[in-house]
């Protein structure tokens, strides 16, 4: 669905996106992670033909962007950075404008507009102009815009921005539902939890470079250690000498091949176990390990001696 080769964007001396090779497959919910300023939005804008790449190529739905924009973009729904609408018009009027721009016939327009408003939970909204909308309502309207043309691919930049927890849940359910119905979702976010709950594949951007691209399942694979929770930590340590890699007053991390055998061994020795589970990598650990410092952090250079 999305494939880039060596995609690069330089603004003067600053390289915003550096040699990006993205691979988003049909049916994915692709979580595009990165700190603020890591180049996510620039990438999204290049995919949509808003920003022109310095070098490299981008293919969306199998066609070269931005050249094939006229054929590609009608099948793509997008929320870029933040929603935007004509402030003096109502949400409905804004959607009608976009329906007309997309070439929708006047007949059936009201039905299409009501349909997307229902989907994002704005079905009962009144005629108030968009400038009187709350942040959450604007976000929902932005999603309605993206869904208007029944896209095969959704490109969403921070779609849950400004929503309360219930709203976030609703949008997540909506995206999951759309994905189940065959829509590929490219979800750019700096919220790890959001991506962890929805994504099937993850790409991590760090200072313009793609440092990781893998399925979520692989990223969250077992670490090979087993987490044991027990009130008898001392007894367990004595029994498993050499295999315990870490412990505190109520639990241990043990490196063993056979978890069932470990369980039998502990119980056999009279060690009481309240919890036993294979330890898994968390997305946070993986992402932080792959990334450098926070993107919006600018440390003072340490002055070198003798210079």
């Amino acid at each position: 669905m999305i494939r880039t080769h060596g995609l690069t964007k330089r603004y003067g001396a600053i390289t915003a996106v550096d040699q990006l090779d993205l691979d988003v497959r049909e049916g994915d919910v692709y979580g595009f992670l990165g700190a603020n300023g890591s180049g996510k939005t620039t990438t999204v804008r290049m995919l949509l033909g808003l920003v022109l790449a310095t070098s490299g190529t981008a293919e969306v739905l199998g066609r070269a962007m931005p050249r094939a924009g006229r054929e590609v973009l009608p099948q793509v729904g997008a929320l870029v950075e933040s929603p935007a609408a004509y402030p003096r018009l109502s949400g409905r009027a804004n959607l009608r404008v976009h329906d007309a721009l997309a070439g929708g016939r006047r007949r059936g327009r009201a039905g299409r507009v009501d349909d997307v408003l229902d989907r994002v939970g704005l079905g009962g909204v009144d005629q108030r102009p968009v400038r009187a909308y709350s942040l959450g309502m604007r976000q929902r309207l932005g999603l309605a815009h993206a869904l208007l043309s029944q896209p095969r691919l959704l490109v969403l930049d921070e779609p849950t921005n400004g929503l309360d927890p219930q709203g976030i849940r609703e949008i997540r359910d909506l995206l999951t539902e759309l994905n189940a119905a065959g829509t590929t979702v490219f979800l750019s976010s700096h919220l790890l939890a959001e991506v962890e709950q929805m994504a099937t594949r993850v790409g991590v951007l760090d200072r313009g470079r793609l440092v990781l691209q893998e399925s979520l399942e692989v990223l969250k694979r077992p670490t090979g250690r087993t987490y044991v929770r027990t009130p008898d930590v001392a007894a367990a340590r004595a029994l498993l000498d050499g295999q315990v890699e870490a412990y505190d007053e109520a639990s241990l991390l043990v490196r063993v091949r056979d978890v069932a055998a470990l369980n039998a061994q502990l119980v056999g020795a009279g060690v009481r176990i309240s919890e036993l589970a294979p330890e898994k990598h968390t997305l946070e650990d993986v992402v932080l390990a792959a990334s450098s410092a926070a993107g919006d952090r600018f440390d003072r250079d340490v002055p070198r001696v003798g210079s």
Partner: protein
Amino acid sequence: MRALTVELHQLVRSRRTWVTILLIDLLPTIVAVLLAVTDIGPRPGTGPAFLSAVLTDGTLFPLAALAIVLPLFLPIAVAVQAGDAIAGEAQQGTLRYLLVRPVGRTRLLVAKLVSVMAFVLLTLAVVAVTAYVVGVLLLGTSDAGQTTTVSGTSLTQGQMIGRTFLALAFALLCMLGVASIALFLSTVVDSPLGAALGTMAVLVASTLLLTLDAADVVSDYLPTRYWLAFIDLFRDPIHWRDVIRGTLLQAGYVVVFLGAGWANFMTRDVTQ
């Protein structure tokens, strides 16, 4: 063309459009009322064109109204409208959503330009009709079917209508020149105000330089140089020199600035 339909729809539905037109229309109407009440015309050779003539013939007042709004009011409105075209969408954040809908960049630019010109046409129509009505009602008509030219000879009604349309076409072209400059600036800067003010700065500078003898070498190339040349269409015989020069000069401005605006917009990163 969908983008054009949507633009025109928004133009006629926007309250700003009608308020602007109303304000522009107000000035010539005030002038007509003052003329009718006081019956004092400008001394020959001073004041806006045709004003001395309209005291005897109210049907000439649309032309006087044109000469009143063309030097300042209309170009300001055009600079604001065209300056808002791209920069306004960019500032609002709606530009990126138009482009990914998708509306092609060239199409968007054309739709915006046509919409600005539709605004000019609408304004000129409203001004002309109001001025005709006000002129006839307040200032009265002269002998039936005869209109006096600036040169003092008479024109038939047919000649008069033909020349009036020519004058409107010329005014439209001058405003197209202004719109081209503003549209170009609108693709360069991110603020609609900046684009409008930049255009006005060009026009004010041009007007100022025209009064300066030292600027004679460039005066023939200044954008406002031939704006009022449409008056020459009402001389007998028609004084074509300035009209033709003005047409060529405005065409030059349109080609250069629209070309630059288009080239800039096509290759520009939309980062707002």
